[in-house]
Structures are given as C-alpha cells and as structure tokens.
C-alpha cells in the first residue's frame, strides 16, 4: 500500500523565503503571519506531531497579570487586539474566554505579594486591583473559607492551547506553508556570513531568513552558529478532570503559585502545578510524570476550591518549561548572524502572547517596523551580575 504521506520523501530539502524550526504555537503563529505577508515558508519539526512540546502541555492561561513588566505590553496588546477575534480569523474555535483572573491568597503575606503584582500591573496601565473576602466570594462562590483576598484582573482569561496551536497550523498550511514533521534538525549553517541553511537528517533547507522557535532545542541550534541562549528545562505537571457542571469562568491562580487552572469549554478542569521536588526528580528522558506530583497538586487545589474534591482526574501529564535566565523570552534578530531570528525561552508563559509574538517575529523577519518594541527581548541582553 503506498503511503501517500511519504511519497517523494527522498526529495526533501528545498528553499523558501523563510525556514522556521519548531512547530509549536510560536512557530505556527509565526508561519501564519509570514504567509499573510506573502512569504513562502517551510516549518521543520522534530516530533511526529505538531505542537507536542510546551504548546500542548500548558494550562491555557491568557493573562496579563503577574507578568514581568517587560512582557506586559505584549500580553495587553494580544488581549485587546488579537485574542477576541482569533477564532474567527483562524476559522476554528480556540475557546477563548475573557472572564478575568483571580489570584488567591490565604495569608497576609500572600496579600502583600498580590498587592505588589496589582501595583505593577496598574503602573503599566493594566486594570487590576485587590478584592476583599466578600468581593472574591461574590465573583466566585466556590472558594474555600481559607481564602481571605485575591488580586483581580478582569481582562485576563484562558483558551485551549491544543486547539489554538492546531488552528494556527491548519490556517498556515491552507495558506501554503510547507510543514515537515519527523525531521531531526542538526544545525544552522551560514553562507558568506549570513544564516541561510538549516541542516537536517533528511536534507538541507535554504532560506533568506531562518527562525528558531524550537523551545529548549533552540539552544543547541543557536549554538551551531555561536549564539547562546541561557535557558534550562523546568519540569512542570498538569492534570485534567472529567467534565463537571459549570462552576466558574475565571482563570485561577495563587499567591503561592502552587497551582493554576480553569474550567474548559468541555467542562473539565485543567490545572498545572508542582511538588517542589522537581529539580531532584531523576528522569531518563522524555516527559514522564512523577508519582508524588499530582497528589500534591490535588491537595493544593482542594484547599482553595473544596467542591473539586469529588472531581475525578482522568489524566496527568508533564512538560518542560524553557526557563530563561531572566524570566522573559528571547524575541530577537541576531546582529552578528544576519538572517537569524530567535523566538524562544518563553519560560512557561508563551501561550498567552503567542498571537502577538507570531506577528512580531514575522515583522522582524521581513524587516518591518515591529508593532511593539522588542528591545527588552534582545538576544544579547544577558550580563553577568557583577
């Protein structure tokens, strides 16, 4: 039986205006934006599936609150201008809900932390304030008595990261972007001082521009042209329940950052969290879950939302956050390697800003003035502390 998928696979390799490495939400959103600008694009992905890294493992938060001040403008732009119409634009329901984010506190110290976050937010024009115990409960009657206050950002929300990533992919593919999965990318090669070639296990792809949006894998690839992005992998886990009766629409988080999550369009709850022992958990590779993490996440959740004690968990999973040394991504062309653009190290909060990042990276590639200033995300910003 002929495999219609791999006919002509020997002919792999080729040229395009832009070669994008990585088919997560960032790579797919970038490819989509490039296609809108009439560029020919090839996206190369190591996994056999699109978006099988952080893009399909995160908690789906679309939030502005709690972000580093440098990221805030991106998040605010995405929430105001891009997320509300994204489903329509992509022709697929990404399940975007804009019903706010509650970050919960149980102690006075928590409230101080939350006030700090709210203050930073407001300083940057974000609608964010503190809520009293009564106000919190009015917004969300399912919270436990232990909650004494919360920060509240009414314009935050959540969406479905699996659907969003695949929606960008589907639209980009329909616009003519060529996606090749199952390809081991070995490195980037310059030609006459300009990054032009992506060397893979099945051939060489050549383009005027190269975008590296390969999560943690970007580090190795950037290193092949002498660029280092200081990031490391941080394991985090998530769990999902059966569908529950509709409870609350807000995104939830805590001052302790011990869990975060929301109720999806389907009715299930998705929560992310950790056990605190991640750095010492030993793994042979891949993304396995640890036996102690989901129980710990459950205990955290039940302290805040007692009603969920009877919700049944049907699946747990894990993912690697690509944690940048200073907590915000690298979204940057590379002066010393013309033709190369980096979009990586999103430190676990790339999903919420993915629509704008896709546009910004496309603008960088095409030499256009960027919609927002991305100086803060330059590749060469890292300095020793002394």
């Amino acid at each position, binding site marked *: 039986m002929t495999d219609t998928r791999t006919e002509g696979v020997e002919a792999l390799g080729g040229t395009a205006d832009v070669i994008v490495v990585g088919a997560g939400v960032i790579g797919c959103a970038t490819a989509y934006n490039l296609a809108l600008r009439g560029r020919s694009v090839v996206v190369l992905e190591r996994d056999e599936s699109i978006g099988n890294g952080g893009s399909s493992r995160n908690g789906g938060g679309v939030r502005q609150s709690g972000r580093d001040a440098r990221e805030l403008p991106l998040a605010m732009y995405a929430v105001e201008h891009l997320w509300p119409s994204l489903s329509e634009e992509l022709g697929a329901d990404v399940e975007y809900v804009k019903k706010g984010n509650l970050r919960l506190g149980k102690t006075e110290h928590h409230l101080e932390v939350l006030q700090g976050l709210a203050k930073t937010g407001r300083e940057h024009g974000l609608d964010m304030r503190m809520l009293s115990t009564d106000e919190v409960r009015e917004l969300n009657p399912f919270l436990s008595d232990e909650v004494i206050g919360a920060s509240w950002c009414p314009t935050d929300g959540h969406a479905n990261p699996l659907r969003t990533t695949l929606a960008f992919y589907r639209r980009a593919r329909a616009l003519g972007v060529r996606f090749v999965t199952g390809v081991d990318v070995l490195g980037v090669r310059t030609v006459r001082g300009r990054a032009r070639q992506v060397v893979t296990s099945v051939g060489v792809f050549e383009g005027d521009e190269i975008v590296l949006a390969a999560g943690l894998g970007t580090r190795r690839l950037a290193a092949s042209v002498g660029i280092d992005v200081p990031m490391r992998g941080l394991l985090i886990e998530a769990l999902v329940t059966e569908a529950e009766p509709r409870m609350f629409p807000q995104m939830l988080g805590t001052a302790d950052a011990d869990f975060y999550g929301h109720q999806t369009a389907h009715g299930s709850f998705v929560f992310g969290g950790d056990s605190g022992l991640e750095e010492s958990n030993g793994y042979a590779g*891949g993304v*396995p879950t640890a*036996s102690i993490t989901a129980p710990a996440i459950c205990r955290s959740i039940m302290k805040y939302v007692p009603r969920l004690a009877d919700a049944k968990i049907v699946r747990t999973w894990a993912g690697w956050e690509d944690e940048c040394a200073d907590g915000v991504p690298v979204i940057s062309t590379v002066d010393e390697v013309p033709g190369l653009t980096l979009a990586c190290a999103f430190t676990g909060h790339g999903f919420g800003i993915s629509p704008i990042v896709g546009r910004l990276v496309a603008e960088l590639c095409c030499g256009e003035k960027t919609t927002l200033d991305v100086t803060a995300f330059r590749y060469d910003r890292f300095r020793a502390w002394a």
Partner: protein
Amino acid sequence: MNRHDLIVIGAGPSGLSAAIEAAHAGMDVVVFDENARPGGQLFKQIHKFFGSKEHHAKVRGFRIGDELLKEADAAGVRVELDSSVLGLYPDREVVVRHGDEVFHAKGDAVLVATGASENTLGFPGWTLPGVIGAGAAQTMMNLHGVRPGDRVLMLGSGNVGLVVGFQLLQAGCEVVGVVDAAPRVGGYGVHAAKLARCGVPFHLSHTIVSAEGTDHVTGVTIGEVDKSWQIVPGTEKHFDVDTICVAVGLSPMSQLLDMAGCDMVDDPRRGGLVPVCDESGATSVAGIFASGDVSGIEEASSAMIEGRISGAAIADYLGYLEHEGETRRVGELEGSLDALRQGMFAPKNRGTVPERTEEGCPVSMNLLEHGFLSDDEVLAYPGVTHAKGVHAVIECSQNIPCNPCQDACRKGCISIGENITSLPVVVGDAACVACGMCVASCPGQAIFLVDEGAGDGFATVTLPYEFLPVPTAGTRGRGLSRSGEEICDAVVESVRCVSAFDHTNLLTMRVPEDCAMRARFFRPSPADADEEAVS
C-alpha cells in the same frame, strides 16, 4: 514506602501463577487487583479446558481458578483486592488506590499481568443499548446470573464468540446466528460444531450492515462481503434480535508498561501494543516483567505457564533461586508452554489453513465454512469407526493440543500418543464398556458413544448434554444432525449425571438405525418439554 520483593499487578491466571512460583522460591509477594474478586477471566469460564493433564485439561475454568487461589493462599501470597494500580514508574514504584486513599509501594521486581480488554466494531447503531462485548455477556451470565437478552446475534467466530455463543444457549437465550467477515470459522471446529448441532447457523463472509432500534436494539441486518470487505448489494439478511454480542478480538491492557518507559511494539499478531520482552517476560526496564495476555493475546492455559516462567525468572533475578535451578524449572515450563503452541491454531500457524492434518486426513472445509462436519467427511478421521456394540465415536478433525480422552479410557480404547496434537484414534480391538468417561472428558464435546445396531432397527447415541432442564428417561423428541436439522424421532433412554462427569450429563437417545452416524443432538418435543417443566 512499603517495599516488596515482587509486586504483581493483576490477580488473573498469569499473575497468580507467577506469584505462586515466586512465593515457593521464598519471595515476599503481593498481588494488587482492581476487582472485588480475584481470578481474572477464569471465573467466567464455565467450560472445560483443553490441553493435557499438566494444563488442567477437562477441568472447568472456574475450578482452575479455585485451585489457583488455594495454592496462592497456601504459598503465603497476599492478594489485595479493590486495589487499583493508578501508575507504574520506571523505578518500580506503584501508586495504588484502595478505598478512599492512595498509597505508594515499591517492588524489587514488578510483574504486569493486567490482561486485555475487548475490541469494538463501529457499525451503524453500535452505540445502542443491547450491543455488548461477548466478554461482558459472559460476565453477566456466569458471574451475575443475568441473561443479556433473549434473541442474540453473535458477531465473531473466534473461540470467544463460539464459547460465549454456546453459553448464551445454555443460559436460555436464542442465538440466531454466528457472523464473521472472514471466510472461515476462526475458533476450534469442535466449538463451532457444538453450536451447529443445536441449530445455530453460521454466516461466514458476512458482516453487520447496521443495528436497528431507537433506544435499544430491535433488529440487525447483515450482508455478505467481497474480497475488499465491501457489502455485496442484494445479500442483506435481517434478524429480529434484542442483543448483538461483539467478539472481534482483544487488545492488551499494556498502558502501565508503556508509562513505565518499557520499549513497546505495535504487533497486530499479538493484539496491539505490547512490551518488547524476552522469553521470561523481562521488558527493557530492569526489574519490570510482563506475562499473560498483556504481552500477547493467547489464552488462559498459556497465560498460567507464562506466569510461572516469569515467577521463576524473577526469583533468579533477585537471587532467590540458583541459576541452574531456575534454568531447569524454566526448561520444564517452556516445554509445557511449547506443547500448547502446536497444531492448527498455534500462534506460528495463524492465518494459514492446512489442507491436511498431521496424519494426512483432509481438513474439513465444511467445518470451517459452515461449522459442522458433513456425514461423509466424518469417516475420514481415526476417531470415527464402525464396530459391533457400543463404541466411542470421536468427531475430532483438527490438530489441537488436547488429550484428556486418552487418559479417560481405562480400557485403552483411545490413543493419541506422545504428540498431544494428534487426532485421537479409536483402537479397533479394545473393548468399550460404555462408562462414558470419554464423552464427559472431551472439552470439545466431540465424543459420542454409538451402538449402531441396538436392535429392532434402532441405534443408540450417547451424547454430552449441558443444558437445563435435564430430560428424563422416556422423554420424546427429535434427533438433530450435525448441521442442526431435525432428521428423526428420538426417545431418551437414560440420562446419567455422575459427579465424575463434572456436570456433563450423558444423554442416551434411541434413534432409527440409519441415523446412528448422523444424529448428534436431542431436542425434546414441546409437549414433552411442558411435562418436564411441570413434573
């Protein structure tokens, strides 16, 4: 965290066998099972098993289950029921749910023996109530005493479909037919024959077109399939049924092995995703083993031996058994396992149909395509002879590993020999005393005692009868042929229910002489049946 020498996941035949073997070697063994009762699929198996004595031949499945549990208990194996293993990790840790809490436990070795689950088939209407798996029907009938329905269509002619089809009859259901898209019966010919002579028709090269009904099944349409599995227009047949049993294969429940990081392979011949293991069941993760259906769909008999092999290998791995001892033990067990994996239905022979048996007899295509041997075909087999007086007639025509009939006869009338797949030979000069032990011992219910010239133009046929109510002497009825056709009048001469027969009643009926080699089942006449009910 509690630590055990060996954690076994699944207290079915394979898991328990492994636990027993390991416990005998001195290991501390705990078995976790998510069910309220142990024994896996064994307790649903009310039929007699095949194989030879070492394989528990002629013993009913649930009794084998009882024996295993006793042995496990005597060996000091702890079986924790209602204990669901939620996760298995590469360092051999398990997370177990019991009641309202979870606990962690660690094994120096872990054996996964979680068995398999039933496949589904997505024909239109498959989600209607009344469409159930054959295994589910078996659980309902044999564990809970609940009839799944009144009129049933069985989809699937492998051993599961055939065995459960017969059990549906025993439970009082009407089985309107056995359907299979394949051109030949997939399971043992003797299982098919049991159904055929009760009047159940076989529709091979057919599949279900659709199930009808609004809120439950009320009927089903089947149609013939061509070589590309497309329905041939005009071949549709409709049946009024309230139940459709689906027996389309099993899939290993290998998820725990996968999550623990074992190398896995998708092997259609083993039923799906199975761990890559060696002959002892060792997977690619140190200390994690797999045995039974989870490592490849076979049957309970081989699952039990695989379990023992793994148990011995684990004992060796953890230093509880000296290596030579283990090698000897495993050698014996592998011999026993190998004996089961021979013959027409051996895993290595799957997909092929021989033209002749090992002895050179023709393999009956009638049996394979319609579920019964034809009258002239039957004489080709060494178990079918003519003789004066009562003699055994063994309608066994396929090489399968099975020999309890040989052991059953104290007079040396039946011979199989060293090779247990050989067809039984009825020895010409031996003197049958009509004790009936052979009839009762045959797991395929394929042995009859026939007196071709009982006198006055009549013959007697003694057949295995496992239905209720048991007819009494004098009951009138009809003799049915191998194809289930009523061919003559018949009268019950006697029915013997002896404990040594283990619930296989021996019904002797008197039929016209010319039906001696044709009548193979008894159906009481309705009038007489009513009298039976009243008396």
